[in-house]
């Protein structure tokens, strides 16, 4: 009897909680779930990973082959990294599409962009850690792009030196990937979520959340079983693989880098980024959704089509 009363009390107190509505903030909650999985798998892999250039590859192989479920954790971590970037890009498009960056919420826009920046940096530092040849050369290629961008390159060389990978850089990548950036990501996620509206809990809220979590985990598992990442040979700074794949969000930038002269590329990149950051202060018209005005909708769709085309051309030029 007493237990029943306590359970009832608990349910009553649950009814008083205000939660984020699932339909309105679907993408954001998906990002949250994805990050939860990332934190869990990453934390578990820390138990076995040895942060050194010589033994990193060995310990990664050990995680994949010998540790129970290590194969799944490794591949889920990598696939989750790609999916989370896709979700954050979709979130940015959503903010533009519904013009959610308008006046009291400019800060939300900036926090989301900074979250994307941190997540892409997380990708960049993460792929070095297995010390696998293809990933190693991906990092080298991303560094080639980073070198040309004025302010970013000086920040990079303050933290990681002279665009050469050695043991000091490796241990720094490890520290940034597994401790520093996750803390920053948590802070920015908290700041983003504190901007959202809440509503009273529906009785099935946590059921829906659980179903969403399971579905997403299922998708990640399927991806990691059907398309696992190849960890084949140890890194070799003197042997380039025939094709170096870049992460999808860098393909448009890579396209720009190929076809523009060096200095123009860096400044253009900085200016474009700055314009995107101050978008809420540029666009001061009525906060209507973008599809209600034909001009802004056509500009938006043209912009997206251009980015996609640049990405596709960049892919074929890899």
């Amino acid at each position: 009897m007493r237990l029943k009363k306590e359970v009832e009390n608990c349910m009553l107190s649950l009814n008083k909680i205000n939660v984020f509505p699932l339909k309105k903030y679907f993408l954001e909650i998906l990002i949250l779930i994805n990050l939860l999985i990332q934190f869990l798998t990453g934390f578990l892999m820390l138990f076995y990973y040895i942060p050194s250039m010589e033994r990193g590859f060995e310990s990664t192989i050990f995680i994949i082959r010998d540790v129970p479920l290590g194969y799944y954790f490794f591949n889920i971590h990598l696939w989750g990294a790609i999916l989370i970037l896709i979700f954050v890009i979709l979130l940015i498009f959503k903010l533009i599409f519904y013009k959610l960056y308008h006046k009291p919420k400019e800060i939300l826009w900036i926090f989301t962009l900074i979250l994307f920046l941190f997540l892409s940096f997380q990708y960049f530092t993460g792929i070095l850690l297995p010390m696998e040849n293809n990933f190693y050369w991906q990092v080298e290629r991303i560094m080639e792009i980073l070198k040309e961008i004025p302010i970013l390159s000086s920040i990079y060389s303050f933290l990681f030196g002279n665009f050469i990978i050695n043991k000091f850089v490796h241990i720094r990548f490890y520290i940034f990937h597994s401790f520093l950036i996750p803390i920053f990501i948590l802070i920015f996620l908290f700041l983003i979520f504190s901007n959202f509206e809440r509503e009273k809990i529906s009785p099935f809220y946590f059921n829906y959340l659980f179903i969403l979590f399971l579905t997403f985990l299922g998708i990640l598992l399927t991806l990691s079983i059907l398309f696992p990442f190849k960890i084949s040979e140890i890194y070799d700074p003197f042997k380039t693989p025939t094709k170096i794949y870049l992460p999808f969000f860098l393909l448009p930038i890579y396209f720009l880098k190929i076809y523009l002269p060096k200095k123009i590329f860096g400044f253009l990149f900085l200016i474009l980024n700055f314009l995107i950051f101050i978008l809420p202060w540029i666009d001061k018209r009525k906060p209507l959704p973008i599809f209600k005005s034909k001009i802004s909708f056509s500009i938006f769709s043209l912009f997206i089509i251009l980015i996609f085309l640049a990405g596709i051309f960049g892919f074929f030029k890899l």
Partner: protein
Amino acid sequence: MKRRDFLIWIFKATIGAWILGFIGSILSFIKFPKLEKEEFEKEIEIKGYENLKIGEAKFVPNLKEPLFLIKIEKGFVAISAVCTHMKCILEYNFENKRIDCPCHGAIFDLNGNPIEGPPRIPLKRYEVKERGRKLYVVLE
């Protein structure tokens, strides 16, 4: 200014300076140390070059600048083994006497000039010094 205000101002300034110093010391610890002098010498000694025949090349795995040491009739030539287009590591083609890039199919001749493919800038050439029986390549 009253004496009390002045004291408060001094107190705030001291705390501010202390915080700045704290942050500065952390940043100076984090800042990447200069390692180039210790890791990369200005001259590298090359071993095992005696058996090279004319037209053959030896790959010198140097982290700062991988090199090809090519034997020609008059002596040796040292050419950078990093493609000027996208920094891929090049391959020496003994049969056709040229240097190939595996990434985008660029071709360089033995002087380092681009013949085919996307790169426009020629490969760097380095000075080779012979002292007694030892051979050195001078990096800048």
